[in-house]
C-alpha cells in the first residue's frame, strides 16, 4: 500500500455532558464529506456529567483502520483537556481553547512546541445567542486552522440542526463561519508576523503545519458508520424481524437503531424487563419462525446464559450480539475489552453447539448481521457475535454503497414448507436423526407439524425421555452439528507480506490496529504480517492448521489479560504462540503500541 501523504489526528475534549461526542461525530462526517478518509474513537466515562471525555478523529488520504497517536490538533473545551492531552501532542501541533480559560499557561504550551490558539469561542457563541454553541465555534476554528472548506461542515450542521428550527441552525452557521474566519485571520497574522521556531527544537512554532487544504482526494458519496449500526443494517438486510434487549453499554445503540427504524423496517423491538426476559423473548420469537436477536454486553450476557442453553437444547436459531466492555463485573462500562471469549464459547451448563463470530471491520459487522442468521438457521443453534466498545462505536468511512443489501444471501436452513408438511406421509419428527445433525424444522402452526419442544432430554418426536438410546442419539445428533458448522466456518485472513518473520495473531476488533501496524512495520522495513480470526467457534481446524503452519514467529495480540484466544487456539490445535501482547486498560491498542510491544516481545529486529 502506498504510504499516506496526510495522516492527522484531531481531538476534541471536554466534560461529560458537553456534547463532545456529537461535535466530534459532526466534524468527522464533515471531513469525510470534504473528501477525506476518517476513523474516530470515543473515549468517555461512565457518568452523565463531570469528568473528562474526548473524541478523536484520524484523517488521511488513505483508508484508515484504526486510531493513532499522537494528536495534531486539539480542541480543548475545558482547561482539564489541555492538561490531560498536552503530553500526547505531535511536535508543531496546535491547541484551540477558549480565551477565557484562566489557568492556562500559554508559555508552557508553547514551550512544549505546540501552537496555542486562545480563541473567542464562548464570546462568539454568546453573541449569537447561547454559549452552548462553543463547540460549533471550536469546529469553525479548527476548519480555519486545517484550511478545510466550510461547506461540508455547514452541511452537516444543517443536517443536525435543521430540525431544531431555523433560528438555532442559522445561529450555529454564523458562529461556525465567524470562528473559521477568526482562525484563518489569526493564522495569517502569525505566519505573516514572525518566522520563529518550528516546534521541533522546543521553540514556539509560528505556523501550523498540519493543514488539510480545502478538499481531500476521496471522491464519490461516502458514509461514516460504526460497528453497531453496520451490524444493525446487516441484521435488517438479513430479515431480522424481532429484537428484544435491556439497555447495556455498548450494546444499546444497536438496539436503539433497530427501534428507531422499527416502523419502516417492521422489526418488532421490545425493551424487556431484564436480560433474562430479553433472551427468552428471542427464543420465543425464534420458535414462532422469526429471525430474532438480542444485543447486550457481558453483564447482560451473564444473565442470558441459562436461556442460551435452552436455545441450544431445543435447537432454535437465535442471535446474540455481545458488545464487550472492560470487565470483570461492572468494570469499565464505557471502555473496550476482549475479555468474554472463553466465556462465550463455554457459557451454560452441559454441552451443545453454538457458533461464535467476531467481526473485525465495519464490513464484517454488516456481514455478521445477516450471516449470523443464516448460520443460526442452518445449524439450528445460537450464534454469538462478539464485538466490543471500540468496534461498536468507532466510525469509519466507506463508499455509500459498500454495505450492499443486494449482496446479502438468505439461507433459512432446512425448513419444511406448508406443502412439504401437507405431503408428509409419516408423523413429523422434529428431532429426526440425520447425518448432519440438523433436523428439518416445522414452524408451528401447521396441523401436520404439531409438536412440543422441551428442554429436558427428548426423543426424535420431541417427547421427554430418559432412555439411554434416545439420549445418546440426540446428544450425538446435536453435537454433530458442530462438525457440520465447522465446515461453514472461515479460516483466518492474512494481511501483509507472506513469510513474514513475525505474525500478529489477532481476532475481532484488533483487525484495524494490527493491520495498520503491519503497514507501519513494512514502512519501517520490518517483516511483520497479520493472521486475523473472525470465525472463532467452532474453529475450522484444517484451515487453521494450514495457516498456522505458515507462521514463523507467532505473537498473539489481545485486548485482555490472559490471552484468551491464544488459549483457545492451544486447546483446539495444540499450537502455542511465542509471545502474547495484552492490553487490558479499556483503551484499544494503537498501531504504534503494537509495534513497540512487539519490539519488547520478540526483539527490535522483527
Amino acid at each position, binding site marked *: 500500500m502506498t504510504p499516506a501523504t496526510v495522516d492527522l489526528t484531531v481531538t476534541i475534549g471536554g466534560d461529560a455532558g458537553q456534547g463532545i461526542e456529537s461535535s466530534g461525530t459532526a466534524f468527522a462526517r464533515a471531513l469525510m464529506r470534504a473528501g477525506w478518509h476518517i476513523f474516530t474513537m470515543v473515549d468517555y466515562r461512565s457518568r452523565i456529567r463531570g469528568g473528562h471525555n474526548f473524541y478523536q478523529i484520524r484523517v488521511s488520504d488513505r483508508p484508515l483502520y484504526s486510531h493513532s497517536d499522537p494528536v495534531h490538533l486539539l480542541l480543548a473545551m475545558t482547561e482539564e483537556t489541555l492538561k490531560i492531552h498536552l503530553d500526547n501532542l505531535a511536535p508543531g501541533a496546535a491547541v484551540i481553547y477558549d480565551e477565557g480559560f484562566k489557568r492556562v499557561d500559554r508559555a508552557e504550551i508553547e514551550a512544549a512546541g505546540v501552537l496555542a490558539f486562545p480563541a473567542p469561542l464562548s464570546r462568539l457563541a454568546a453573541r449569537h445567542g447561547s454559549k452552548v454553541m462553543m463547540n460549533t465555534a471550536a469546529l469553525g476554528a479548527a476548519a480555519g486552522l486545517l484550511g478545510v472548506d466550510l461547506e461540508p461542515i455547514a452541511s452537516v450542521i444543517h443536517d443536525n440542526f435543521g430540525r431544531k428550527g431555523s433560528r438555532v441552525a442559522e445561529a450555529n452557521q454564523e458562529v461556525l463561519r465567524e470562528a473559521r474566519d477568526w482562525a484563518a485571520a489569526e493564522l495569517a497574522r502569525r505566519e505573516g508576523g514572525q518566522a520563529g521556531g518550528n516546534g521541533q527544537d522546543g521553540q514556539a512554532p509560528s505556523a501550523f503545519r498540519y493543514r488539510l487544504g480545502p478538499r481531500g482526494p476521496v471522491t464519490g*458519496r461516502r*458514509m*461514516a458508520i460504526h460497528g453497531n*449500526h453496520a451490524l444493525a443494517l446487516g441484521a*435488517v*438486510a438479513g*430479515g431480522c*424481524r*424481532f429484537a*428484544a434487549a435491556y439497555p447495556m453499554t455498548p450494546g444499546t445503540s444497536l438496539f436503539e437503531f433497530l427501534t428507531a*427504524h*422499527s*416502523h*419502516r*423496517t*417492521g*422489526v*418488532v423491538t*421490545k425493551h*424487556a*424487563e*431484564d436480560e433474562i*426476559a430479553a433472551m*427468552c*423473548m*428471542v*427464543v*420465543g*420469537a*425464534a*420458535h*414462532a*419462525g*422469526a*429471525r*430474532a436477536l438480542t444485543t447486550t454486553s457481558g453483564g447482560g450476557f451473564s444473565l442470558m446464559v*441459562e436461556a442460551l442453553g*435452552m436455545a441450544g437444547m*431445543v435447537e432454535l436459531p437465535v442471535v446474540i450480539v455481545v458488545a464487550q466492555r472492560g470487565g470483570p463485573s461492572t468494570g469499565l462500562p464505557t471502555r473496550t475489552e476482549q475479555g468474554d471469549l472463553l466465556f462465550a464459547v463455554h457459557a451454560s451448563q452441559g454441552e451443545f453447539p453454538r457458533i461464535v463470530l467476531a467481526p473485525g471491520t465495519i464490513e464484517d459487522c454488516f456481514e455478521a448481521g445477516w450471516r449470523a442468521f443464516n448460520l443460526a438457521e442452518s445449524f439450528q443453534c445460537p450464534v454469538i457475535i462478539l464485538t466490543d466498545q471500540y468496534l461498536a462505536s468507532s466510525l469509519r468511512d466507506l463508499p*455509500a454503497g459498500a*454495505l450492499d*443489501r443486494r449482496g446479502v444471501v438468505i439461507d433459512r436452513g432446512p425448513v419444511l*414448507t*406448508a406443502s412439504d408438511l*401437507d405431503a408428509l406421509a409419516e408423523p413429523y419428527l422434529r428431532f429426526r436423526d440425520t447425518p448432519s445433525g440438523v433436523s428439518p424444522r416445522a*414452524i*408451528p*402452526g*401447521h*396441523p*401436520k*407439524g*404439531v409438536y*412440543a*419442544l*422441551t*428442554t*429436558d432430554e427428548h426423543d426424535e418426536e420431541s*417427547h*421427554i425421555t430418559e432412555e439411554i438410546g434416545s439420549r445418546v442419539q440426540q446428544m450425538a445428533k446435536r453435537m454433530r452439528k458442530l462438525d457440520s458448522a465447522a465446515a461453514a466456518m472461515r479460516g483466518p485472513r492474512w494481511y501483509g507480506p507472506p513469510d513474514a518473520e513475525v505474525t500478529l495473531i489477532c481476532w475481532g476488533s484488533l483487525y484495524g490496529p494490527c493491520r495498520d501496524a503491519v503497514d507501519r512495520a513494512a514502512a519501517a522495513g520490518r517483516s511483520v504480517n497479520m493472521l486475523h480470526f473472525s470465525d472463532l467457534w467452532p474453529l475450522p481446524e484444517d484451515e487453521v492448521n494450514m495457516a498456522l503452519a505458515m507462521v514463523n514467529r507467532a505473537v498473539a495480540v489481545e485486548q485482555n489479560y490472559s490471552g484468551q484466544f491464544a488459549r483457545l487456539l492451544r486447546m483446539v490445535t495444540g499450537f502455542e504462540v511465542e509471545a502474547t501482547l495484552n492490553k487490558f486498560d479499556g483503551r484499544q491498542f494503537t498501531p504504534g503500541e503494537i509495534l513497540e510491544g512487539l519490539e519488547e516481545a520478540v526483539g527490535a529486529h522483527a
Partner: protein
Amino acid sequence: MPETARGGGAAGGAPGAARPGGGGANGGTARVTPKDFDSEHRPTWCPGCGDYAILTAIKKTLADLGIAPHQVMIISGIGCGSKLPDYIHANGFMTIHGRPLAVATGFRLANPEMTVLVVDGDGDAYGIGGNHFIHTCRRNINLTHIVQNNQIYALTKGQYSPTSEQGFVTTTSPDGAPERPVLPTALAFAAGATFIARAFAGRPQHMVEVMKEAVRHPGYALVDVMQPCVTFNKLNTYEWYDQRAYDAAAEPGYDPADPVQAWERVNQWGDRIPIGILYRTVRPTYEEGVRALQRHGPPARWTERDLPGEVWDAMVEAFT
C-alpha cells in the same frame, strides 16, 4: 358449532400456521373435540394430582372455543405441572424454570395469530419468575396464564413455595415457612392485570368456564388454579380448598368490572376463598400498540421480499 375465540385460533379469518402458510385442516370450521388433543403419552403425575383436571379442562376449553391443536401454543416452565405439554397433542414448549411468560411474549410478538397459553407452577410464576409476572401484568400482552398453584415445590420434592401458608413445614422450612405468602390475585391487581381469575382443580366444569373467559379476554389473563398436590402438600388438600372455595359470581351485586369490589375479592384468602372471575377490565393489548406489527404483519411470516428499497436507502442515507 363451536364457540369462537378472539385473537387466536378460529377467530377473525385465517387461523393457523404461521409460516410458511397453510391454514391446514382445522381452518376454523371443522369441529374440534377434546379428543383431538389426546396424546399417547400418559401423564406421570401421581394418582389424584390436581394437574389431571387442569389438563382435561384445557382440552375442553380449547375444543369448546374451536381452537385446534395446531392453532394453539402451550408454553410451560419446569415443574410437575409444567410437563403438561408432553401429555397433550398441541403445539407446546416446555421452557426453563420461571421463564415461560417471557418466552410466550416473544412468541406472541412474532406470531400474534396463534392462541398462546402459559401453564406453569407457583414456583415458576411467583417465585423465580416473579419479575416476568408483574411486568407481563402491566404489559397486557394477549395470552392466558394458567398457574398450577399447589403451594409447594413438587418436582423437587417438597420445599415451600411463595404461596405456601406462613408456618408451613417443609424441608427448607423446618420451623415453618417464614414469609407472608404471595397472594397472586392481589399482586396481579396491583401490577395492572386486566383479567384476574381463580379456579379450583376440584371443580372442573367451573374451571373450564373460567378458562374460556380467560382465553377470550383481549389481553393478559391470569387463572390461578388451586391445585392439590396429594404427595407433598398435606395441608392444602382437596378438602381444604373445597371447604373454602365459593363462586364469586354467585355473590349478590357481583360486578367483576368494579375495582373496589375487585380489590376486596383479590385480597380474600382465608376461611373463604373466591373462585371465578375476580376482576375484568379492558385496556388496549400490548400488540395493538406495536406499529411494526400492525403495519408489517407477523415477524413469523417474514419473506425475503419484505423490505422496500426506499426504506433501505433512507436508512443508509442517514450515514452519508
